[in-house]
């Protein structure tokens, strides 16, 4: 049976406007953007650099406030929350940051254990067990005593993902999860993503440059261009779009797929 909370979107943008820059030289990053992120599904946000992709994630988390519009997470307006309520709402999220944002003075183990130590009442032994479990799933066993600076980029991302998933979040945000990784590691991260999403069933929002590969994961694709958005359900829809800038984008980034299609044909 589908309950009401299951049918409402996990995150909903309603007419969101965001300016950047200082007074006198402000420019609009988002021009009244509206879309919703379906629950339990994967939404990929793509677009060129500086189009406000990362800003979208920060808006969802309430780290930035929009200049107008509303952002609903589970029906609660993030833009109007503050203090404890905002903190409680953030408990629903796991975030994998662009540079992994691991705490460099803490070891891998301590990094992953931090949310458990700070936000739960688990005993030290339970924490150790849970962290060991995650380390195994993410193939990090044996590295728990290392510090972030001693890890490769791919491993840092994996530790970041492990930390983000510790509190079993409902929604996980990925900010450029594969930037700076080689193709093998990129595939590795995607496989991990699939495995963990299957296991935990979280809603995912992925901001990525890795086009077209990341589209394979997507249930919904959001293209940001000059502050406006277009929402698609799959790559085929992008290719069929009539809008000139989307056609241009598709030809530039999906060139390989076009060729593959024509070969198949």
């Amino acid at each position: 049976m589908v309950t009401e909370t299951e049918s409402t979107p996990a995150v909903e943008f309603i007419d969101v406007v965001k300016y950047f820059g200082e007074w006198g030289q402000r420019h609009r990053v988002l021009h009244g953007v509206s879309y919703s992120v379906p629950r339990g599904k994967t939404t990929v946000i793509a677009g060129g650099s500086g189009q406000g992709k990362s800003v979208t994630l920060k808006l969802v988390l309430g780290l930035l406030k929009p200049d107008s519009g509303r952002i609903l997470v589970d029906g609660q307006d993030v833009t109007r929350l503050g203090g404890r309520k905002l903190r409680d709402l953030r408990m629903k999220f796991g975030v994998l940051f662009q540079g992994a944002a691991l705490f460099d003075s803490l070891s891998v183990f301590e990094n992953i254990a931090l949310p458990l130590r700070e936000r739960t009442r688990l005993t030290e032994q339970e924490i150790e067990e849970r962290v060991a479990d995650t380390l195994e799933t993410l193939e990090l066993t044996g590295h728990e005593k290392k510090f972030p600076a001693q890890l490769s980029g791919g491993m840092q991302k994996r530790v970041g993902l492990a930390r983000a998933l510790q509190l079993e979040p409902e929604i996980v945000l990925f900010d450029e999860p594969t930037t700076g990784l080689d193709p093998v590691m990129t595939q590795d991260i995607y496989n991990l993503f699939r495995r963990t999403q299957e296991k935990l069933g979280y809603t995912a929002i992925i901001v990525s440059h890795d086009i077209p590969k990341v589209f394979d994961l997507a249930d919904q694709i959001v293209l940001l261009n000059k502050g406006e958005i277009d929402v698609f359900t799959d790559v085929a829809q992008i290719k069929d779009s009539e809008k000139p800038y989307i056609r241009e984008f598709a030809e530039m980034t999906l060139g390989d797929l076009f060729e593959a299609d024509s070969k198949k044909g």
Partner: protein
Amino acid sequence: MTFWVKPFFYLGDNCLYLLADLGRMGIFLFAALAGLFKRPFRGKELLKQLHFIGAGSINVVFFTALSTGMVLGLQGVYTLQKFGADGMLGSGVALTLIMELGPILTALMVAGRAGSAMCAEIGIMRISEQIDALECMAIDPFRYLITPKFLAAIISVPLLTAMFDVVGIYGGYLTGVQMMGVSSGSFFNGMMNSVSNHDIQLGLIKSFVFAFLLVWISTGRGYFVLQIRGAGFGAESVSKVTTQAVVLSSISVLIFDYLLTAVLL
């Protein structure tokens, strides 16, 4: 913009920026103090910070105090002998150190050594999104990061100041009495007769206020590294903001020294 409007524009713009900056720092201070009452209290982190700010500064404070005291001893004898008043050496050295040089030089040394390090640490955590990561895990960055530094500075700077006073007075004794031949009895007698509780209290109050100023400015500048105008981006912004933190805290220590002396003397 016509040329005669420009100066007004920049004046207004800078005033607004200054007001916003002061407001930010005010809110920052409030949040850092509120962190004192939030649980769980981070005792281990406090000890670590006490070790870094307090114990770590002992060497530099010791040598500054010794050399300052020795110079005061030599100069005191030179000046006082002109009036045949070298018996006043003890009270001169002690009062100067306890009321003025002890608090101020300790604060400047700690600002240069620990203040710069705190600012850089927090600045790097900000630009590498570690502070955002804390907020996303619903961990209050003030309780977790800033408040232990505040407490540690407020505890250790007055203690370091007391050590500065003792070592400085011994330095004055070494040069004045041992080298220049002032009588030891008149040195200590003069000191005991002229230094009152009020003088010691004034020195202590000063050191508390200075500790507060330097930790507030250092951590605050690092925390707001992204909002500070003209700081640039990345590593450069942290270096500029660290310089700014040391300069600003030194200047405010000097200004408050005058104000406190004028009010409390």
